[in-house]
């Protein structure tokens, strides 16, 4: 294995002074930027005229990261070349950047992390970011906090950086956000629930145990997830162990937090100062560009510290012009606030550039209006055009009198017009050239073939006479049904530039409920992203009330019995039996109380009925309870009151009714239930058989049990007064 020697060497360096490592996942694993990303990877798309990757590297450099692994999948040779040419490869940059090419079969961040693990890249705690991050947060402080925490708590494996904002902040993605439940004191993340724009959720399901175990929790829906994670070395190995983890948030974080077996914890770092955001879709592209131009990312701003080392000059009102005096502005042109114009660009007479970014070597013809648009390098726009809230690729030519309405994405090298009218949210790319041998990957090929079928849609008038372009079909909701989760069609609308999606908010009620009923029987944990489906609510909020027995339940009960019988028969240790039960519970996704019922029932049934007198019976009970009683508290949660209730219900239904008092006494002797628990149980109305619908016999049995309990409490009281007496008498004798 070639990487081996390298890692040992890093180990040596790491011993001297901790080298801070970072892993950049320089692939988006989705298609939100197509067709802009057909010819180049997303991380090389320019934002404010510098490739996204440069912004990310700069953000990491700001935090003092010394070694960076860039994991690239699509167009890796371009990423590699870009890194080689950048200032980072020069000696003296103080940063070592290693591009890692991963296999084409890497389809998710999870796969990429498994690759990180198999290559053995990271040797200590590392920073995991996406290749589309723009941040000025002091990540080194987060790393320090993380390491500090690790000293006392080895199970804190990850720290997620989140930025405070407000729920409707422009930079906070409406389509892909989350509700975080945090412990107010330790800022441990207790629960993570993804929220999508569509289907819309109005409820967050928070497991009851969280509220029971933590006195102070914060439930927050105002955090921007920056996807900056400070991870321990275990994290890639956990991905390796759980081969079904795809997404870092939806699968990994959710999996770790809900797992009883791993006992790992994840913390959050709520960044109050600084800025961090991801360019995860075209909408956030717009938002982050605006944030950069209005200087929220300071000192990462074009005039101060442009990541690609282009010099810009700031004029009042956040207007940035290339500093080398190559920009030619006509006397009558108007440059609005929050605009940036790259070197060697020419702005003609009467042009208005409003809140837009114009790349280098662009030409904008007379009287054209460009507002809230992003124009990449080398693009020519003719006279009298109107371009609104769109992204125009590099080398595009928009001829005279064309109108590009909001939300359009125009791929590299496209020629449209003259007189083209592009309707909102169109996606346009260059038609495949017959002569040219296409060396694209199969993926984009198939995309293009798809397109050709649709070519009759291209009414000649729409794109203009001289156009070489094709219009992408509008993905209809039906076609996209295979895209579940975040990338469903309606949800993607929340991530499009220029789309306020105001119509979805009103019209979606019907679709939500039908989706819910379809999936309610689905045991997949994805179901909890669904709206107010009753079954889901019940499953994620275990309550004391018995759940109606379904065939599924019976099966589980059966499994529990079998596993316990095996344990009894083969004499397993209590711990082993407990682990087995936990696994079983995870596998069948049932509540804790169901397991408890099973365990108590199995233990009580285990007790042999002896006819030779109460003393022998008592010995028999003590033997069983001594051996197995502990198991009741080891199945994942301690709730002694419920244990007694379950015991009572079970005894009431079986012929072991007379044993109730003795079993309870034995449990009390073994400290499995305490005196206070018995009192608490005794006070419950349900313990007296009130409100229980069962046969008359059962209710009377319950009442009998309650009476036994009452006697026991009486004894406690007597004992207590005895002890007091003894205590006082002893004091007297002293």
């Amino acid at each position, binding site marked *: 294995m070639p990487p081996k020697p390298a890692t040992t060497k890093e180990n040596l360096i790491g011993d001297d002074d901790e080298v801070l490592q970072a892993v950049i996942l320089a692939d988006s694993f989705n298609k939100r930027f197509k067709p802009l990303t057909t010819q180049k990877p997303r991380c090389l798309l320019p934002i404010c005229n510098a490739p996204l990757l440069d912004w990310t590297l700069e953000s990491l*450099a*700001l935090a003092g990261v010394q070694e960076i692994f860039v994991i690239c999948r699509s167009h890796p040779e371009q990423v590699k070349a870009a890194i080689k040419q950048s200032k980072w490869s*020069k*000696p*003296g*940059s*103080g940063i070592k950047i290693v591009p890692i090419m991963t296999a084409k079969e890497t389809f998710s961040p999870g796969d990429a992390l498994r690759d990180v693990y198999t290559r053995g890249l990271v040797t200590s705690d590392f920073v995991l970011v996406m290749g589309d991050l723009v941040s000025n947060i002091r990540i080194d402080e987060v790393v320090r906090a993380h390491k500090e925490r690790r000293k006392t708590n080895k199970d804190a494996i990850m720290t997620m950086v989140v*930025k*405070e*904002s*407000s*729920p*409707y*902040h*422009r930079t*906070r993605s409406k389509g892909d956000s989350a509700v975080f439940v945090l412990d107010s004191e330790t800022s441990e993340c207790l629960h993570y629930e993804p929220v999508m724009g569509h289907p819309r959720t109005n409820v967050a399901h928070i497991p009851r145990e969280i509220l029971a175990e933590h006195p102070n929790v914060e439930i927050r829906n*105002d955090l921007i997830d920056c996807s900056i994670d400070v991870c321990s070395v275990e994290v890639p190995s956990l991905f390796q162990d759980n081969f079904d983890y795809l997404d870092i948030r939806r699968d990994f974080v959710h999996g770790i937090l809900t797992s009883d077996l791993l006992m790992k914890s994840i913390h959050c770092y709520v960044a109050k*100062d600084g*800025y961090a955001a991801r360019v995860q879709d075209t909408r956030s592209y717009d938002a982050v560009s605006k944030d950069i131009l*209005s*200087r*929220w*990312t*300071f*000192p990462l701003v074009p005039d*101060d*510290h442009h990541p690609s080392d282009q*010099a810009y*000059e*700031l*004029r*009042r*009102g*956040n*207007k940035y012009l290339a*500093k080398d005096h190559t920009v030619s502005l006509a006397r009558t042109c108007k440059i609005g*606030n*929050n605009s940036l114009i790259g070197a060697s660009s020419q702005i003609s007479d009467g042009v208005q550039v409003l809140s837009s970014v114009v790349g280098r070597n662009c030409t904008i013809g007379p009287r054209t209006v460009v507002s809230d648009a992003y124009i990449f390098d080398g693009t020519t726009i003719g006279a009298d055009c109107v371009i609104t809230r769109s992204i125009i690729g590099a080398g595009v030519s928009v001829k005279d009198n064309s109108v590009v309405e909001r939300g359009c994405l125009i791929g590299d090298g496209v020629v449209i017009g003259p007189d083209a009218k592009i309707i909102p949210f169109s996606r346009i790319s260059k038609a495949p050239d017959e002569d040219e041998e296409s060396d694209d990957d199969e993926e984009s090929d198939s995309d293009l073939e798809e397109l050709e079928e649709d070519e009759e849609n291209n009414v000649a008038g729409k794109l203009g006479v001289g156009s070489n372009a094709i219009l992408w079909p509008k993905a209809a909701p039906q076609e996209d049904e295979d895209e579940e989760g975040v990338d469903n069609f309606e949800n993607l609308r929340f991530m499009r530039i220029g789309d306020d999606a105001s119509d979805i908010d009103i019209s979606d009620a019907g679709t939500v409920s039908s989706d819910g009923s379809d999936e309610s029987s689905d045991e997949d944990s994805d179901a909890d992203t669904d709206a107010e489906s009753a079954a889901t609510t019940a499953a994620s909020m275990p309550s004391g009330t018995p759940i109606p027995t379904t065939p599924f339940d019976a099966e589980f009960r059966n499994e529990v019995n079998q596993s316990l019988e095996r344990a009894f028969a083969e004499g397993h240790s209590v711990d082993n039996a407990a682990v087995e039960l936990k696994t079983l519970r995870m596998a069948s996704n049932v509540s804790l109380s169901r397991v408890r019922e099973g365990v108590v029932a199995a233990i009580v049934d285990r007790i042999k009925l002896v006819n030779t007198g109460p003393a022998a019976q008592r010995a028999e009970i003590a033997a069983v309870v001594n051996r197995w009683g502990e198991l009741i508290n080891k199945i994942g949660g301690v709730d002694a009151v419920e244990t007694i209730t379950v015991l009572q219900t079970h005894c009431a239904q079986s012929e072991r009714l007379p044993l109730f008092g003795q079993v309870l006494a034995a449990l009390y002797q073994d400290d499995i239930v305490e005196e206070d628990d018995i009192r608490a149980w005794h006070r419950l109305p349900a313990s007296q058989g009130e409100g229980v619908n069962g046969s008359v016999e059962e209710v009377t049995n319950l009442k009998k049990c309650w009476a036994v309990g009452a006697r026991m409490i009486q004894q406690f009281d007597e004992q207590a007064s005895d002890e007091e007496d003894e205590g006082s008498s002893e004091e007297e004798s002293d």
Partner: protein
Amino acid sequence: MSTESMSMSSQRLVDNLAYKLKRRQVVGSRAAALETLLVLRQVVSKARFSNIDQLVDIIRGAGRKLVEAQPKEYAVGNTIRKVLHHIREEYQTATGGVPSTSRTSFSISKFLVQGQPRKQAVAVQSEDRPLLKENDPDDPDSFAKGLKPVLMEAIQDVLDELETVYDNVSKNAKDHIHSDEIILTLGMSRTVEAFLKSAAHHRKYTVIVVESAPSYGGHEMAKSLSAAGISTFLVPDSSIFAVMSRVNKVIIGAHAILANGGMFAVTGSQLAATAARAHSTPVVVCAGQFKFTPMWNLYHEYAALDFGDPSAVLGFEEGDLVDKVDVVNPYYDYVQPELIDVYITNYGDHPPSAIYRLIKETYYDEDNELDSSTTAPESSKS
């Protein structure tokens, strides 16, 4: 060219500082000046050169890089100019060139006779009276070897001056502040802090500190002053004009002092100086000599074009507003020379009108332009 003759290690040092300046990890005039000096010392000690021009080129090359990295920290350029000045001076004494007296005693009358000083300086340099042999083909390092000790001494002088600048600025403090006066100051300035504390040893007086939003440096200043036993009030920026009628003197710090006698200073200085003018209250500026910058502020009447991060003014969490409001958070104000009465420096007290002369004495004219972009701090015409 110059960069080639710079050794790898010193080039790395320069790059390193350039990045630090860019990322604003080194902020403040004095910190920037100190860092620059330390780097320059390394550069000079490692440099290989066989005549003075090569050495000057090396230093200029390093300087250009640093200034380009952060054109808004004027102290970087000033330090480089100062070091160049000292080096030339040492060179001239070492080679027995025309002593600098003829240059420093430059006056208007001589200007008429002799013409531009630039030409004169060049003439001095071309004179070659070798005590130290330049461009020796047998031993190209001999020149460097001979000159280096004096050069290091020269740089050490600059360093010493920088380290003692607060003491030297404040040594005459008691002559400027009288008993029972009320002094108004603004934000946090180490120079002003040292000045006021030094005066407090001799006089009993009151300071009104303006908190200077949004950095709120005034809070720190007020704490420090009251800890030193000075009776201190902290007031918001909005009450500057209201309290001005009771104030005897305004004492503020500077970020950079420009050749026309104006200065860049922390936001709010312009407000305070204007209010002081309205009440005919004297405005005193305390600053070290390293802040003298041979530049003019040609285009902006009120501010330097150095804007910070809007988050100090409007929280990022105010989502709705962020979308609709353009927030401006300027770092520095430009204060015109007419509003300032006197500069107190470690080289004595001077009126704004005399600053040009100090600058001429401090730096060589040909060093004023390290690169084209520093001729004017801002070349924008907005």
